[in-house]
């Protein structure tokens, strides 16, 4: 019988699996949009690292918050990093977990799956189920998904005065191509 820290153990094993067994990100893009009454904030990043283990259907993705670009202005980017996401304190966002559906990632096809795992941003973890489209062809896995992040879920405080500039929920779009390495 295994005891309490087994989960960490599993994650550890997962990260140290033999290289030929894993899909890793070849290219990826994540973008978000906050549609507030007075202001629309959007930005995107391609600095995403990620792994997908076809034997267990477990995955892990991480992203440097500071890599977000494409804000309307430098000031907006500064506010985003300093005031809201506190990127110095919480430099990364991550999502790691498992695919619920019983699919074989090594076989070609298109699947609508649910990815369940811990979504961490601003230092606050939430268990999320994110619906995604997985297209597998020629040994490549493409992931397409979009989801909502309620800011309150992650203790991201918005001063009342700028409430009209930042939506309480932001929409995130993510797509990536992974290759077996």
């Amino acid at each position, binding site marked *: *019988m*295994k*005891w*309490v*820290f*087994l*989960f960490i153990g*599993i994650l550890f094993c997962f990260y140290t699996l033999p290289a030929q067994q894993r899909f890793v990100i070849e290219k990826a893009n994540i973008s978000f949009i906050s549609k507030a009454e007075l202001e629309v904030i959007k930005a995107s990043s391609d600095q995403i690292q990620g792994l997908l283990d076809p034997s267990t259907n477990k995955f892990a993705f991480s992203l440097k918050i500071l890599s977000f670009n494409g804000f309307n202005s430098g000031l907006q980017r500064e506010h985003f990093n300093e005031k809201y996401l506190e990127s110095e304190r919480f430099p990364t966002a991550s999502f790691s977990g*498992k695919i*619920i*559906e*019983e699919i074989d990632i090594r076989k070609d096809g298109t699947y609508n799956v*649910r990815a*369940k795992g811990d979504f961490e941003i601003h230092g606050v973890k939430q*268990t999320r*189920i994110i619906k995604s489209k997985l297209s597998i062809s020629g040994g490549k896995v493409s992931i397409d998904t979009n989801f909502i992040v309620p800011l309150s879920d992650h203790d991201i405080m918005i001063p009342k005065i700028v409430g009209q500039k930042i939506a309480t929920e932001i929409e995130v779009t993510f797509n990536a191509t992974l290759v077996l390495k």
Partner: protein
Amino acid sequence: MRISIIFLVFFSISFFTSAQIPFFQKFGLPNKNEKTDIHVLFQDRNGFVWLGTGVGLYQFDGFSFSHFTSKDSTLGNHITAITQDSLGRIWMGHSSGQLSYLEGDSIKIFTTPEGNAAAEISDILFDSKGILWFSTLKDGLYYFNHSRLYRLDEENGMPDLYIYDIEESSDGKIWAGTDRGIAICDLRGNQTNIQIINQKQGLPDNIVRKIKFKNSRFIWLGTQDAGVIQYDVEKKQFTSASLNWPYGTISDLLIKHDQLWISSNKNGIVMIDSKNLDRIHKFSTEGSDQALLLDQEGGVWMGSKSGLMRTSGTEISFLEKLGQDIDQNIIAITIDHEENIWFSTRDGLFKMEKKNNVYEREKLKKFPFINSQVISLHTDSLGYIWAGTFGNGAWHLNPNGEVKHYFKNELRNGNILSILSKGNNIWFATLEGATQIKVQGNHYEIKNIGSKEGLSSDYIYQVFLDSKNRAWFATDGHDIDMLDRAGIHHFKLGEKPKVVYGFTEDGDHTIWVNVQGDGLYKFTQDKFSSLKNLRNNNIYSLNTNSSGNLIAVHDLGIEVFDFRKNRSKLFGEEMGIINRKGNLNAIAQNQTGEVFIGTENGIVKYEASYAAIAENTPKPFIRKLKAGKNIFHAANNLSLAYDDNDITINYLGFWYQNPEKLNYQYKLENFDRYWINSKNLEATYSRLPPGEYTFHLRVSDSNDFQNAAETKVEFKINLPFWQQPWFYMLAAVFVIASAYLYIRLREQKLRKEGYILKLKVNERTKELQMRNEEVEAQSEELQAQASEIQMMNEHLEELVKKRTEELERKNEALEEYAFINAHKLRSPLASILGVVNLITKLPQTPESQECVDHLKKSADALDEVVTSITRAIQKGNRN
């Protein structure tokens, strides 16, 4: 024959949809300022309802809440699972991964040498073998057996570590709903065999959040996205309740008879009938992800962030949203054969079309007599609608609203108070007698009957046609008339004439009467007799439901009376029937047995959930017994000291549907002679004399205690110790013992003394013996001496005799001698002495002189001797 005028009625569809909503009672938790998020609800075997919240554990008894929290910061007060063990203790699972249990008023942490789970506890249970199981969100399944904690994870074959729910099947296996299907764990000894049911087996959704066993064959599964699924264990088949489940993730399920209650995150509470999966009832309650609980009374509880709610069931529901634009006072009601509801208010006649179990209201706007007030409605056996007005006659309508015929002039009176029919035989009750209409196709045969024709009154409330084709007339103040083939018969209800509102015929074909203000009368043996079986006698409408039971709408609500068992159930306040007084004879039934009642505040629906009335009674519970300063919780057979005789017993009745309505009766056996009625939750007895007592408690939601459940607590007040038999015995024993001891001691002492004495005696005896012997010896000696002395004496005497004789002889000899001496001796001597004296005178020579002197002296001496001898002899003679 009159030509029937065909009117076309136009419906104007107003978009008022009406779901049927049962009454949900809301409970306010004591901490009003604090956000209390209820995660789990549980009812223990006693009847208490327990709430696991984000701020600790709450206990609810229907009257008040008790709050339990832990001060341990690692344990926390975020309670996510509750169960009860075989000893009756409440166990809790915490979001911290720890388990705890309630002992007395304090929360104790359950510790194992193996530690705790690393994630939130999602469920706990004690299986039929008593093994504690608990599941976690992200840390697998655990069980505690033989004082050791075991964990089942992917290596043991668990499909996933994220487990939402665990349930034990009838064969003792643990079913776990996980993120990747169902794991069925079979624990045999220390071997666990895990079987998995997932998408590969056809499970529509891998995320199984809730498992409920309907029976050993059918299992309801609540899933993340695919709604509820019924799994047939035998056929290994899955049936979805709805192909496109629109209500979101299922967080809880509850089975109540044939109903499946579902807590969803998009629509609050949804209920489906497992006999008819298409009939989905949405109860648009506040809050999502509600925890559900079915209590022992059959009530359904819901707990969430928005608080705590309970409904007593779906027997009574309300057609909400008739539309705010119209008056809610429903004067008349009928249900057509398509289950559409026709009702009238002062704003007109309306039809509610039933679509997908929801009613859509339409107003029959261009009704020919828009200004007429419809006061009676009826659906005949062919499904046609009859609408009677106040003063303007009546219509015969097609189910689609088309007017088949309008009756006005043919009627003696245009005020149609009620319409009832049997087959093609229609009867109107009017303010001028009754009108009988026989329908033959488009031909109507009309006959008016009133006081002229022999009725007791012209004011008729209802004409009822029974199974024997008799027509019963409810008169206004003139009791009852009956028309059969023989004619009109009059029946008196009592001394004073009464107002009769209506009739019904029960499942055994007995006629029952609704008498104004006087309750029910029953027709047996050609007589009406009053029966005060109901809780209220102001009945507005009376009907019989599909199971043959009577339904009476009265001041307290809707009372269903099972005349066969003489038992009734009232659906009143607790079902939300408040300020909803029924209107006179505004009652209708559809073909499936649902009863609709027109009230002054909307339409109330009654649907018997089972053929019989649920036999639930309030459950009495003795909470504690206070004796002097001692408090005993749920104890029995107490033995109390003689001075702990001020007794206070705290009790309550579990009756969550309406605890305030409870009446209690108690009796202290051996003290009270009669039952004592009470509304209090406590009974006090002061200075009870010593004795054995049994406190009986019964509780009823009415004043009738015949079927009331009873509980008791036995206790004994002991005699003061000095009056106790044991004390007497002890005292007796003490006395006997001390006497015995005294005797023993004395005896011992005596024995000791005796011994000493004996020793002394022995000594003495010995001594004496010795002395004796000595004495004996001496005495022997003495005896010997004595005999010797005797002998000697005897001899002595002889001797003395002899000697005396001898002495006498000697004496005689001596005397003779002395005589001789004295007399014979003296004469020679006296001659010598005379010669000597003559010589002395002759001259002598010196020499011859001396010789002569000497001779004289000797002769003198001899003379003296002879004289003394003579004297002695003389003396002896004298002696």
